[in-house]
């Protein structure tokens, strides 16, 4: 559906996007993750047709949209990371303006506007002035605006940044609804947990390059085949750490304030042997369990790896 091929963007001598490639199948929500300044916005602006790539292609349903501006405008809905609204314009007039700008017939506009405002839960605000809306409402309105021409692809640059938790949940609900309508969605973020629940696949970008792509589970598998265990003890912390460090299957023992975390390679027997060993040595274990790995671990591991390679 949306295919990015060897995309390069240089600002003068600085390479912001470097041979970036990835693909988003139809109906998927792709989380585009990476720390600040790695080239997410640049990539998104190229997809939205607001910037010309130095090299590479962006294909939507096989058409190279960097060559065909008309296609971008028809197929892509874009919500920028920062955007403004006009003073002295009401919500439905705001929507009507963007309908008109997208050459939608006057006769069709009413229904489109009503449906979209319903989708983003702003039907009650039709008559309000746009600049009086809260930040979250403006965000939802801008999302509705990017949908007036019923684009197949929706690209959202940091849609959750600056929103309170409640507004984020609302945004998530809307995106899920859009996914069920068959839209192909790309969302960027520099915060991983935001995307791990929502995305069907994720790509982690660093310094203009894609480091890993895949489903959330894939990425966790790719980044590590270890299990993470967590124990809490009320007595014998030092002994526990000493024992853990002696085990060949254990690695990365981390002492936290009230618990100890470590990685382990092996099956259930290995895990159970370690617990036995601890108890035999009079360590008072009150908790012993597997810690759910989340994407943040993967993220930290990947970005750390990169730095190590460079050094």
């Amino acid at each position: 559906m949306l295919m990015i091929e060897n995309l390069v963007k240089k600002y003068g001598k600085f390479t912001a996007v470097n041979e970036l490639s990835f693909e988003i199948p139809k109906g998927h929500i792709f989380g585009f993750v990476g720390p600040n300044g790695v080239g997410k916005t640049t990539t998104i602006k190229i997809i939205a047709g607001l910037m010309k790539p130095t090299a590479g292609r962006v294909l939507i349903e096989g058409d190279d949209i960097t060559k065909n501006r008309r296609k971008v405008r028809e197929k892509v809905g874009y919500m920028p990371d920062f955007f403004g609204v006009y003073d002295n314009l009401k919500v439905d007039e705001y929507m009507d303006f963007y309908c008109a700008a997208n050459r939608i017939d006057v006769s069709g506009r009413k229904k489109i506007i009503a449906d979209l405002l319903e989708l983003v839960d702003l039907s009650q605000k039709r008559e309000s002035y746009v600049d009086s809306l809260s930040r979250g409402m403006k965000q939802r309105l801008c999302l509705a605006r990017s949908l007036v021409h019923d684009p197949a692809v929706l690209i959202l640059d940091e849609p959750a940044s600056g929103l309170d938790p409640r507004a984020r949940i609302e945004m998530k609900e809307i995106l899920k609804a859009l996914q069920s309508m068959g839209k192909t969605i790309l969302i960027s973020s520099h915060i991983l947990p935001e995307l791990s629940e929502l995305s069907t696949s994720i790509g982690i970008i660093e310094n203009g390059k894609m480091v890993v792509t895949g489903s959330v589970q894939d990425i966790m598998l790719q980044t590590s085949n270890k299990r993470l265990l967590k124990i809490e003890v009320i007595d014998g912390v030092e002994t526990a750490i000493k024992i853990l460090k002696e085990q060949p299957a254990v690695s990365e023992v981390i002492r936290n304030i009230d618990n100890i975390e470590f990685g382990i390679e092996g099956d259930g027997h290995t895990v159970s042997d370690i617990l036995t060993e601890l108890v035999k040595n009079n360590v008072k274990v009150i908790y012993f369990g597997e810690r759910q790995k989340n994407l943040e671990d993967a993220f930290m591991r990947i970005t750390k790896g990169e730095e190590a390679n460079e050094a």
Partner: protein
Amino acid sequence: MKLSVNPVLEKEAKIKMRSWRAPALLSVYLLFLSGLVILYFVSRNLDGYYSNFDPRTALNIYTMLSFFQLGLLIFIIPGLTSAAISGERERQTLDLLLCTRLSSWSVVIGKLTASLSHVMLLIAASIPVFSIVFLYGGISPLDVISVFLFQIVTAFLVGSIGIFFSSLFKRTAVATIVTYTVLLMLVVGTIAGYVFYAVTRHRLLGWYPSFWESLSILSVNPFIGLGALLEKQTGHFGFVSEMLRRHSTNVPHYIEDLPWMINIGFNIVLSVVLLLLSAWLIKPGRR
């Protein structure tokens, strides 16, 4: 084919008419124009000159009002246009606009027509003030309409200059300052430059610029153009033709019409060039 209004024009009109600025501008504008007429009558009374029916009164007021209106418009229009594009950029709405199916040319034209409509509103509102001259006779409605049309063409150029700098510069403040500077050069600079050139040349070479030279330098000035038009209409005040004739021999007799015709042609050609450049400047994906 269905006729549809440029969406940018429609939006601008809506926003403009809702803000307090539009009525405020209109009131101040009319206050200035009618103030000028009142001042004219007051000063004549102070001179102790009582003649209620002097046909020259009409011609004087008409000439004065026409020049003054042109000056006011040239002063006001940069305020209406130099934020046209840079304002959208500062407000972070430009990208949203450029992502739609509107071409950058439609955006530029929408912005321009919005400010020209505003100008036409001001001109239309000045009709009651202008109609004073009809009380005296000597000036026909057609004359007034020609002057208005001339002023609209000037507004077209001034608006295009504002939009061009608004597209070129990121910040509205910079665009505004540069626009006023260019207008000052167009209005004062052409005359001052011409005088300097003529005097220097006379001193060094012993002769003044030729008629055609004078004509081509001076005719880009909107006030010279309007002056020529008014001279033709009123048959009085020959300052434009005099200035052109003064130091030149062999002046053709159709001279009265040349300055305003050249001015109109110059305004239209330069405006179109500036608008095309503006559209090119804001074209998405250019960089």
